[in-house]
């Protein structure tokens, strides 16, 4: 029973991380329907930017956290401006391959500068943050993650619901042409959604870096694990991303704990194929029925 409880808690923690990583991905897809294969690399860029600011520049934690987020925001804006904007209206394969090319570029650059080794942040979280309750044992990093993640969820919920830019973004996601004809600056919305998505990616990069240490290969493989998560939750649902992430996380830890550790990494993809066959728009996705 203890083993079960520990697996359950671990699964929820890992899954929450997946969910947070998937949030930025969903945001890009929702507003501009671009499938972003470079998401893992955006996450890695955030993690490494934070590393540089904290260990090399020796800035205080809070300041470097905000500088990292601002840097990622700018990066997302630039990426959209330089690479994605010329491709608006082009066939799907070019957009997909462009993000794949970007992923290779970013990964190469990061490897060139930092190498493929594991880097770690200095410890800065107070140990009192951890929860130790009988058989359940949650380390402080996960608690911090939970706090950061929920804060961001609430902030984005408020942003999309009440701010004018958030409402523009929702309108573009809902119907691009109608939004355009009502005077919404669609290109600005695209740029903004890339910037926000990169910001969220950077935030999740920092969180992942605190928990597992930073390694380009691990972080970019998280970018691929986002696919089962978002398909399960529905490609265009931010809440669905979190719930999909938790389900995938639980599935992974339970497979790893009870069946075989090697099956752990492939189980999400097997589930992915079944979901695609049975319910392609996921649990919370917008259903556009088109049988082919």
């Amino acid at each position: 029973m203890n083993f079960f409880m520990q697996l359950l808690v671990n699964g929820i923690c890992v899954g929450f991380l997946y969910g947070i990583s998937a949030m930025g991905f969903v945001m890009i897809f929702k507003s501009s329907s671009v499938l972003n294969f470079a998401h893992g690399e955006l996450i890695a860029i955030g993690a490494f930017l934070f590393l540089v600011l904290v260990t090399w520049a020796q800035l205080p934690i809070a300041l470097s956290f905000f500088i990292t987020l601002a840097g990622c925001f700018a990066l997302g804006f630039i990426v959209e401006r330089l690479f994605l904007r010329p491709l608006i209206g082009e066939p799907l394969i070019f957009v997909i391959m462009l993000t794949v090319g970007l992923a290779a570029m970013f990964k190469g650059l990061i490897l060139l500068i930092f190498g493929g080794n594991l880097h770690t942040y200095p410890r800065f979280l107070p140990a009192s943050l951890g929860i130790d309750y009988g058989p359940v044992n949650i380390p402080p990093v996960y608690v911090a993650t939970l706090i950061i993640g929920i804060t961001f969820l609430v902030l984005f919920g408020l942003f999309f619901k009440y701010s004018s830019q958030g409402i523009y973004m929702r309108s573009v996601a809902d119907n691009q042409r109608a939004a355009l004809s009502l005077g919404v600056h669609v290109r600005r919305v695209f740029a903004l959604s890339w910037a926000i998505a990169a910001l969220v990616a950077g935030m999740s990069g920092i969180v992942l870096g605190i928990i597992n240490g930073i390694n380009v290969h691990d972080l970019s493989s998280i970018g691929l694990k986002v696919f089962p998560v978002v398909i399960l939750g529905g490609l265009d649902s931010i809440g669905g991303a979190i719930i999909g992430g938790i389900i995938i996380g639980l599935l992974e830890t339970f497979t790893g704990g009870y069946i075989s550790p090697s099956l752990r990494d492939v189980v999400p993809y097997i589930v992915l194929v079944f979901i695609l066959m049975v319910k392609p728009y996921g649990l919370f996705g917008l259903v556009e029925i088109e049988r082919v």
Partner: protein
Amino acid sequence: MKKLRFHPCGNFRDHYKQELAIFETDFGRLMLWIGIGLLFAAVPTLSSPYTLYVVNTVGITSIAAIGLNILVGYTGQISLGHGAFFGVGAYAAAILATSANVPFLIAVPAAGLITAMVGMIFGIPSGRLKGLYLTIATLAGQFIIEYTIIHWESLTMGTRGITLPEASLLGIRVRGDLGFFYVIFILLIAMTWIAVNIMRTRYGRAFIAIRDNDRAAEGMGIPIFQYKLLSFGISSFYAGIAGAIWAYYMISVTAEPFNLMLSVEYIAMIIIGGLGNIPGAILGATFITLLNELLRWFTGILINTNLFAGLGLNMAPLREFVFGLTIVLFILFEPRGLAEIWRILRSSFRLWPFSY
């Protein structure tokens, strides 16, 4: 004697047959024969085994890239699992040759058929999915195949890999780079010929119709699910043949090369070469293979000059960066690929001095 055809001074086609013609002029056909003749005459005189190895790699990747172009470029179904299918072909040939003692001449087409079957299984989601959902499904296929190859140890020997026996063709042993050069390039010519001609039949036209508008295609009576499966089958057949030859050429197979990066490389080849263009697939395969070798050579030099050795930098990531940059630049500036550049070059020669 047949009347020779030359370039007309305008578009005077009044027959569908003329639209279907592979060669616009008889001169083009002659040039192709001369080119093939030169290839077979010139390459054997290259003494360096490294050059021959590069040429052979170009040939093998071209076969697989043509297959992917049938699926992506002509049928419009984006697949991120082609590298895994290539691996299935390699493993099928290796297993047939070692545990069943199947000779080379049968093992290669059999590997192609097995891969075609696997490809059709992973093409089943295309019955309900299209566009990016199908892309994600093939991505999952890539991971599932990779996992199966590594963990089905009784069949694939896991991470230890399989060593193949020597290939022999009708009693003649295929040995060394030169022996494989003849096999690979005769096969490449045959496979190119088949692919070009498939596209001129009703099957090819159905593929193109599905790519351009699947609903209209269904409305015109094309059973699109069967045709999509067929396209998956043909494309993985090409990948399987290429993989089988590759396995024999490399003598031993392990699971490592058949990762997502290989699939991405194949898609890059057909985008850089030109989607929906069979000579383009060969151009793209040549381009990517040469780029890989060039970058390997370049990083080798950088490491040897000691300029960067003191910094402890690993230059291998440079390859990844340049590879990504090439894809991005081609998509942004010439999405129709090398085939289009080649066409512009040719027509500007033809139209000289009035080319624009």
